[in-house]
């Protein structure tokens, strides 16, 4: 059920105070993956911004408007004045809305983070788009790329409206995203990454498309510290499959090993592709995540 925000609140996802602090923050990608469109992210190449970059010799054919006439008057030789180029960065957010995220506030935390990253992108004149995957075989719900402060409410409304449920695995969702997405930038994947598929191929595809991967794994407390014992029949929330486990209490050690192993593997795969990975608990306070954890990790400035 959609929770309507009070009139004083901009969105039910985040508190106004948090939004206010987020407006002054911006994403800090490791790589300069920008589009040709003008934006506020400085590109590596020369451009037409007001920020000086370098000088070079004039060659015939260059636009004479960029000749530094002061130097020409002193040295009697023409030099071209170069400026930095500011381009637009595409911030893509992939929100896993499958059934596995419908446990203990995982989905709500994913929407809050998506709203936060989206707001940071919009406030820094980036192109922001949101993909929400539900059911396998269906196209993910899409918030088309938008930019600017005016799109803020649109972003919030979109996120507030989406509902969870479905069996879309995250690896398939990434491939579905890439079929519709164009542009370079940063992709923030908000998921529990609990998939039977292989994450190597979709991450490679993201890298090839010029998207810096920022994976945030959101796990519930039950997944982090399961409290089970005896003989249990586990039921998968997405597929409905069952798994009989005897003496589950004895296997918790092994479970923790596998969970830590999955975390290490995902982090390694993201780092290998110039990306970043972070695993958080759905019960961790959002303020601590946004203003402490992500800052310390250098995800945001």
């Amino acid at each position, binding site marked *: 059920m959609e929770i309507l925000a009070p009139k004083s609140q901009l969105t039910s996802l985040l508190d106004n105070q948090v939004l206010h602090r987020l407006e002054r923050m911006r994403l800090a990608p490791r790589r300069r993956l920008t589009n040709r469109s003008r934006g506020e992210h400085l590109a590596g190449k020369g451009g037409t911004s007001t920020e000086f970059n370098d000088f070079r010799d004039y060659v015939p054919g260059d636009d004479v408007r960029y000749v530094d006439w002061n130097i020409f008057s002193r040295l009697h030789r023409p030099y071209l004045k170069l400026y930095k180029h500011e381009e637009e960065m595409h911030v893509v957010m992939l929100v896993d809305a499958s059934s596995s995220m419908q446990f203990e506030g995982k989905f709500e935390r994913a929407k809050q983070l998506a709203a936060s990253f989206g707001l940071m992108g919009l406030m820094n004149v980036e192109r922001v788009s949101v993909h929400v995957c539900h059911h396998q075989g269906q196209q993910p719900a899409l918030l088309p790329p938008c930019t600017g402060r005016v799109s803020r409410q649109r972003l919030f409304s979109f996120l507030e409206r989406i509902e969870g449920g479905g069996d879309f695995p995250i690896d398939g969702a990434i491939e579905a995203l890439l079929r519709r997405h164009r542009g370079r930038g940063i992709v923030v994947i908000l998921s529990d990454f609990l998939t039977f598929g292989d994450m190597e191929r979709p991450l490679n595809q993201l890298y090839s498309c010029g998207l810096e991967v920022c994976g945030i794994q959101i796990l519930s407390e039950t*997944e982090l510290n399961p409290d089970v*014992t005896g003989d249990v029949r586990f039921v998968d929330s997405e597929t409905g499959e069952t798994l009989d486990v*005897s003496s589950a*209490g004895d*296997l918790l050690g092994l479970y923790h090993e596998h969970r830590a192993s999955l975390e290490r593997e995902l982090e390694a795969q993201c780092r290998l592709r110039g990306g970043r990975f972070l695993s958080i608990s759905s019960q961790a306070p959002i303020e601590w995540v946004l203003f402490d954890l992500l800052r310390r990790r250098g995800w945001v400035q």
Partner: protein
Amino acid sequence: MNLPGFYALESAWFFLLLAPLILFYFLKLKRPRLQISSLVLWRQVINDQRVNSPFQRFKRNLLLLLQILLLSLLVLAAMQPFIRSAPQRAEYLPVLIDCSASMGALDKPGGISRLDEAKARVRELIDKLLPDQRLSLIAFHLTARRLTDFTDNKRLLHQALDKLTVSQVGSRLEDALRMTQALARTEQQIGTVLMLTDGNIPAEVEFELPFEVNFQLIPPGGQNIGITGVNARRAGARSWDVFTRLESSLAGQTSARVELLQDGKSAGEESVLLEPGKSQRLVFRVEASAPTSIEVRLHPEGFDSLNTDNVVFIDLPEARPLSVYASPELSTYRHALKGLEGITLFPDENGAGSAPEYDLVISESEESTAQDAPVACYIGVVPADLQKLVHIEDGTASIVDWHRSSELLEHVQLSGIQTTDDPHSAAGVQDAAYEQLGYEILAFGRAGPLILRKRTGARLAYYFLFHTDRSTFPYRVGFPILVANLVHVGLQQASLSEVPGHQTGVLPPQSLQPNHDYRVTSPDGGHSEVKSSEAGIISGVPAQTIGQYVIANEEKELLRVGISLLDAEETSLAAAQTIEFPETTVQASETSIQNDRPLWSTLALCAFCLLLVEWWFYQRPPGGLVP
């Protein structure tokens, strides 16, 4: 290694319960369903667990396995398995328990007796008795007594065992073995006999063993001192010397105080110190003009493991002269008797005088006077029952050989004596023919016996088949010696010169009125009715308790007889490590009794523990064991 056996093998049918157990397990198995976000991690865990642990397939159904194991243990317990003690099990086992006096010895101050130790071992045997095994308890000392038939009734066996007490007698094994042999012949096949004893038994037994003997040696008692001999000898007209012999066991040095009580009053006291295994003789002088009861008590200083050998009894008769009857015709004997002290000779010089009873009769015929005397000597008389075996011919005969150690002919030289009576045995009559009639030949002639001795009950008779007056014997030095020996025998028979102490076992024969009923009261208060024989002898009365036995006739006390242990073997507490049988030697077993060990209780305990483990395993808090 002995394979286990099952007594109730038919209980194996209960294993069929496994089928419904497994069926119901899978039909009724309901695991709690728990919806989780994804099975990804748990499936990896399960796959990893299967790879790492080869028993995971079983562990998946751990509860089923535990239930199968539990049921199997219960069914196995119901099958009553047992571990065989030997390849051949003894289904019928006679148990011989020594209950002689030495089994009453304590191992330490305030400790338990050897019999209690043996009882404890037998109780363990009874408790571990399997349903198809049967025991027969046999107690033995001087004789054997079967306490129970072959039975598996544990209550009956325990009751019989509880009633078993130490008998104050020595030990002998033959009766018990013969009884067991009889059981083997009449009852069942008996392969092994279990014998529990402290080893204080004869080391050599004349018995052909038809079965094996498991000789279980109970550790002997501690140090002991006891009285092993007592007798009294006349020391004058009205005095006796009481001799007591003290012995100590091999365990250690012992000291004691010996007290002599005459008719319940203290009459003497001595202190003794005995080295291990040594003995000492003490003499007490007692004045007694009338019949008196003597009791010698030993008061050990320190620990004494056996107290039944600490007291002895002896009854001294009235001091009186020996009453002797000698036929007036036997002047040579009368002449020799006159020179001896302590006798009264009848008839007197004038041919007058008589006594109601004579202690010794010397006569030329088997007249009625001699019939009642305890000792009779017939001169020139052939007993009526020997008339067909021997006859007297005229002629010269000489003594060829004689029993020099017999009480009558001791220190008597008979060589060279000539007699004109020549006894001849009938043709074909050997010495054995006389022995069969109860006669012992004391002197041999060339053609037949010359002097015979016959004991009939308590009565002793000597027969001179030749008349001494028709021989050179009265002129020899040996003649007065023979008469003195005869008087000495009379004194002994009349208990006038020496009184022995009596051992437990059987009451010594007592000479009383013929064909009368008597009541014998034992020291523990038991009564037995006995009837005297035609000769007035009562015999065969069991006397297995130390103390004074009272013989009464119509509530009138007639006689007291003191009975004591007086067994040096029992007092020594010596333990034989081996028993020699005619064809084999049995060693004492150093190991305890190996009996079949039932396992049902162990299995039931395992099942209970398994139940607890299962309960704990499924009820314990999560995160316990990490594989």
